[in-house]
């Protein structure tokens, strides 16, 4: 070839040709349109292989990035549950084979890895997710592929996907009982502090509606960007608002800065208690017991819960991961989720998603938090609400209990004051 022919327009010409070729291919590859009435081919048939001695399940937690702090603990308790189940003969006689993926604390990665677990690894179910964003990102993937996700963290409600089981609390099992408790204690005014994202904003919307109906005054509502580290202004506002209590939906590192500032500004649990819904046992060490002792939390499980199931769980966990490792609500919910899936599969006598979902209603498990029951309509589970006080031992001690499991109500349909919230 002479250099000339390659010289001036060679690249341009070739690129035109290749672009045209690709454009033709792209158009010829067109599939169904949503508005044409053609039926889109349904999602690929499930590739889950149940012919052998094992069945694959996926664990999808953030093992790197900012959420690794929390999600690693969930991952650990899932591993524990899998080991127990395998030691106990597996599920329907098949040993669990764990495929573990890292969500990297990014919703996009969660969506991608969920797709990988379902379509490449062909897992029978996936366990994991923490942030609302990660769950929202995975939801369409599970619905499109008609697969199952077990999500183990308390969240903001307003959701009930046929392909997700929610084993953490929805709002009427955590936030509403916490408000009931505060109202019982004679709280007349509240200050709301939260991180600037979905859960706190939705929670505070609910709290505002509740407060209005119950004559509680909301004297302030402040949001800090995720990762915010300077709380002097917000604490100044809290202090001068002089509320009866503070409702705290801050997330992660911000809690440390908030409580240090709160204490240093001379405020205490006696003066203005803080009710937190995102601080569990494993975060207390990082905040410093001195800074948070006596403050309140709302969950459905504490390491100090007294039950034979919990004693066994805590003992097994410490034996596997070390004496210094506490157990917490999300860890318990994750542990429970794997056992619940096993119970559903065994009730259905099938690993197929449709069979498992059909069998889910009424499945129970004697969980560390007490017996839990799956609600087949909304895929949540009935849980007992517990208000706890943080003790000087760094653990949380139950102060108040709803007494019996609360039926899940993710859309708060059973509460008059919540009309028009969603």
């Amino acid at each position, binding site marked *: *070839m002479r250099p*000339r022919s390659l010289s001036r327009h060679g690249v341009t010409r070739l690129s035109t040709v290749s672009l045209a070729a690709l454009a033709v291919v792209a158009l010829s590859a067109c599939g169904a349109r949503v508005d044409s009435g053609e039926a889109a081919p349904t999602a690929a048939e499930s590739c889950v292989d149940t012919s052998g001695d094992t069945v694959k399940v996926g664990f999808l937690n953030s093992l790197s990035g900012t959420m690794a702090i929390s999600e690693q603990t969930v991952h650990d308790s899932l591993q524990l549950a899998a080991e127990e189940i395998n030691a106990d003969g597996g599920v329907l006689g098949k040993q669990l084979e764990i495929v573990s*993926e890292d969500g990297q604390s990014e*919703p996009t990665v969660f969506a*991608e890895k969920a*797709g990988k677990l379902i379509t490449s690894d062909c897992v029978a179910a996936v366990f994991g997710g923490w942030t609302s964003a990660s769950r929202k990102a995975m939801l369409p993937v599970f619905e499109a592929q008609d697969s199952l996700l077990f999500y183990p963290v308390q969240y903001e409600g307003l959701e009930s996907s046929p392909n997700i089981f929610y084993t953490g609390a929805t709002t009427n099992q955590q936030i509403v009982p916490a408000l009931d408790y505060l109202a019982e204690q004679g709280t007349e005014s509240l200050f709301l502090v939260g991180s600037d*994202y979905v859960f706190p904003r939705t929670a505070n919307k609910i709290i505002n509606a509740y407060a209005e109906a119950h004559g509680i005054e909301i004297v302030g509502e402040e949001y800090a960007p995720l990762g915010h580290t300077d709380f002097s202004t917000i604490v100044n506002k809290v202090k001068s608002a002089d509320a009866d209590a503070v409702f705290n939906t801050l997330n992660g590192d911000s809690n440390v800065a908030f409580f240090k500032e709160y204490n240093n500004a001379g405020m205490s649990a006696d003066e203005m208690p803080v009710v937190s819904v995102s601080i569990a046992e494993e975060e207390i060490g990082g905040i410093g017991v001195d800074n948070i002792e006596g403050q309140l939390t709302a969950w459905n499980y504490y390491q100090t819960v007294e039950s034979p199931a919990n004693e066994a769980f805590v003992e097994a966990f410490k034996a596997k991961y070390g004496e210094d490792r506490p157990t917490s609500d999300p860890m318990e919910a994750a542990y429970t989720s794997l056992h619940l899936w096993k119970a559903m599969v065994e009730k259905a006598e099938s690993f197929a998603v449709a069979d498992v979902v059909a069998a889910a209603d009424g499945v129970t498990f004697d969980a560390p938090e007490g017996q839990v029951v799956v609600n087949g309509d909304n895929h949540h589970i009935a849980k007992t609400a517990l208000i706890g006080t943080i003790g000087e031992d760094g653990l949380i001690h139950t102060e108040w209990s709803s007494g019996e499991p609360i039926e899940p109500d993710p859309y708060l349909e059973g509460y008059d004051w919540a009309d028009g919230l969603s």
Partner: protein
Amino acid sequence: MTVLSALARPGRTRTLAAYGLAAALLLLAPTVLSPFRLDLLAKFLCLAMVAVGIGLAWGRGGLLTLGQGVYFGLGGYLMAMHLKLADAGPGGVPDFMLLYGTGQVPGWWEPLRSPIAAILLILLVPAALAAALGWAVFTRRVRGAYFAILSQALAAAFTILLIGQQQTTGGTNGLNGFRAFFGYDLADPANRLMLYFIAAAVLLGMVAVAHQLATSRFGELLVAVRDQEDRGRFLGYDPALVKVVAYVVAAVMAAIGGALFVPIVGIISPADVGVVPSIGFLIGVAIGGRATLLGPVLGSIAVSWAQTSISEQFPSGWIYFQGALFILVVAFLPGGLASVAGVARRRRTAERSRA
């Protein structure tokens, strides 16, 4: 064309061959990859589009932009907003607004109902922002590290804004759960294949545009202004204008990448557009060879692939790997892997001419 000037550009034949090879590989990829892997490749192609723009702005123009996530995000969010509105149907309200918002579509969303307006806005909004910001900083001769830090702060501010406007932007959740792409069902494998081909064609088109810009007089001017800004000024050029053009082109390429990322990946969230992903865009460019034509594309795809496969094996391994890549490649191989090939080639040529 004289023999002499042909010799001056020995890269031409190779460029052409590489381009043809890349096109052929992209065309054949669907025959060997599973649908899941093909979707991943399509996603990598979208990220590579950002890299093409960075190659031009940074490699050629010396503009170290640590905020390309902003333009990627603008393109992505505008596309996502359109898809959300289209899914909701005429006059409909996107699902997340019903859950978290007022249940009303805000006025500034409305123009995006029209597919044509959406495409225009995807191109124009990032271009306008880049032009305004570029003009403001470059005419004041803000450059080097100052520009890098400002662009990074822009990315930080952009994510804070996105997260804070949950009712209208989806907050940290971002926007996802799209059913259709301009009427085509996103669940249909044939349509996903179509999206892949669109991404491949757009990327090849961008590479051709970048090639034309880099080899044109503008490309020479860009290098000139990068190395000796004042000399350019004393020759009567306005360096700010030259830089703004490069910055705008890079921004538009990033925006197109973002816009295609949305239907392919099915989600866009603040975590895809902030400070960290913005710097992440640079690593592939640095590894492939920032000043070369195909280097940024290949580097970007390779890094994306490495991220996916390494993190599948060792979660924390990826962070060490990424950190090590930044350190080793940038410190010891500033020309990227392309410069290794270049050195080897020069050595071969030298041997041949000696023989």
